[in-house]
C-alpha cells in the first residue's frame, strides 16, 4: 500500500515539475483599462501613438499551470493579435509588433501601455498573446477579445503604405465614402483629420516595416 502511495506521490511530483513554469492561458487574468469600443490608429512603421497616449492599456498577471506566478517573462514575449472573425491584422515582425512595458515581476505582473503597434489592416478586436499562448478569460476559458477598432494606413495589409492604399483611401473619402477603415479616428465620418494622418504616413516615401 505504501508503495502505491509512494508511486502516486512520485507521479504528482513529476507532473508538478513538468507543469511548473508553463503558462496557463486560462489562469492569467488580463485587466483592460480604456474606453469600449476603443479606437487605435497604426502604421507598419510603428510610429503612431502608444496605447497609453490613446487612452488604454492592459495589465497582465501570468501564472503557470500550478497557479504560481511566472517572473521574468520578457516584455518582447507579449504582443497583440486580432480576434476579428472577418478581417486580419498583419503584424510587422510578428511578435515584435507590440510589446509589454517590462518583464513580469515576481508576482507575474506586467503592463502593456507604452508600446505602439506596427501593423496593417483593419479589424475590430484584439487578443493578447504571451509566448505564443492566446490568453483566455478565467472560467469559460475563451480567448479574450477586447473591443478595440484598429485602423491602419496600410489598408491592404502588405506592410507598406503605397499607391494601392492611397486608392483605397480615396474610395473611402467623400463624396461617396465606403466602409469604415478610412475613419482612422473612429469619429463616424472620414474627413480631413483622417486624410492628414494618411498623408503623413504615405510620404513619400511611404512608411513600411522597419
Amino acid at each position: 500500500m505504501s508503495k502505491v502511495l509512494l508511486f502516486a506521490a512520485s507521479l504528482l511530483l513529476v507532473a508538478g515539475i513538468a507543469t511548473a513554469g508553463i503558462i496557463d492561458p486560462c489562469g492569467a487574468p488580463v485587466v483592460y483599462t480604456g474606453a469600449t469600443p476603443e479606437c487605435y490608429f497604426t502604421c507598419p512603421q510603428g510610429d503612431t501613438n502608444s496605447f497609453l497616449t490613446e487612452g488604454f492599456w492592459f495589465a497582465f498577471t501570468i501564472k503557470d499551470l500550478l497557479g504560481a506566478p511566472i517572473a521574468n517573462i520578457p516584455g518582447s514575449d507579449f504582443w497583440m493579435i486580432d480576434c476579428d472573425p472577418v478581417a486580419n491584422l498583419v503584424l510587422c515582425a510578428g511578435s515584435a509588433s507590440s510589446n509589454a512595458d517590462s518583464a513580469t515581476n515576481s508576482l507575474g505582473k506586467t503592463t502593456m501601455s507604452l508600446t505602439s503597434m506596427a501593423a496593417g489592416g483593419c479589424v475590430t478586436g484584439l487578443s493578447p498573446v504571451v509566448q505564443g499562448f492566446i490568453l483566455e478569460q478565467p472560467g469559460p476559458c475563451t480567448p479574450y477579445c477586447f473591443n478595440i477598432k484598429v485602423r491602419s494606413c496600410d489598408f491592404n495589409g502588405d506592410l507598406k503604405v503605397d499607391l494601392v492604399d492611397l486608392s483605397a483611401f480615396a474610395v473611402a473619402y467623400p463624396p461617396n465614402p465606403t466602409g469604415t477603415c478610412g475613419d482612422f479616428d473612429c469619429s463616424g465620418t472620414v474627413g480631413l483629420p483622417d486624410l492628414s494622418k494618411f498623408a503623413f504616413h504615405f510620404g513619400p516615401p511611404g512608411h513600411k516595416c522597419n
Partner: protein
Amino acid sequence: MRIATLVVLALMATVVAVSAQTPFIAVYFDEGLSQESKDCPGFVVDTWYVAALNFNTFLSGAEFQIQYPPAVMYVADLNLPPVVVGNTAAGISMGFALPVNGFSPITLCAVQVLWLCEACDGPFIDNVVKVVKHPFTNFLGVTDFPGYNEIPAVGLTAYICATVPVEETSWGQVKALYGE
C-alpha cells in the same frame, strides 16, 4: 460705375481688417501673397496662389473649394502635396507628407486659370474669387499637427476686373442718371 469701384475698395479694406486676426485661406495673384485684386491681363493663362494665414500652428492638411468667376476658366492645380482628393474647383482635400509651418503664411497650392476678359463686363457680383467650404465635407480649414484637430478658417474673397474702364459721357447723360 465709380460706386462699384468704391464698393470694391471698401470690401478690400474689410478683407484686410479680417485678415489681421482670424485664420483664413485666400487667393492671391502673386507669389509673394500681397496682390488681392487683379485686372484682366488679356487672353492668357495665369497662375494664382492659394495661401493659409494666421493659423499659428503646424499644419497637416487643408480643405476648401474655390469658386471661380466667369471671367476665368479653371485649368489646373499646381504644386500640390502628395495626397490630394479632388481639385480646387470641385472641392479639394490635401494632406502634407510633413507638417508645414503655419506660424507664417503658407502657399497651399497654385492654380492655373485662363482669362476670358469679355466676362469682366458682367455684373460686379460675378467678378469675385471666393474660397468657400468643401461641398462634400462642408468644412473649410486645416488640421494641425500632431493632434490632427480640425481648425476652421474664414474663406476670403479676392477681386478681379476691379478697375472700371473710363467711359466717354456728357453732362446731359450724367444729369439723366439723377433724373434731372
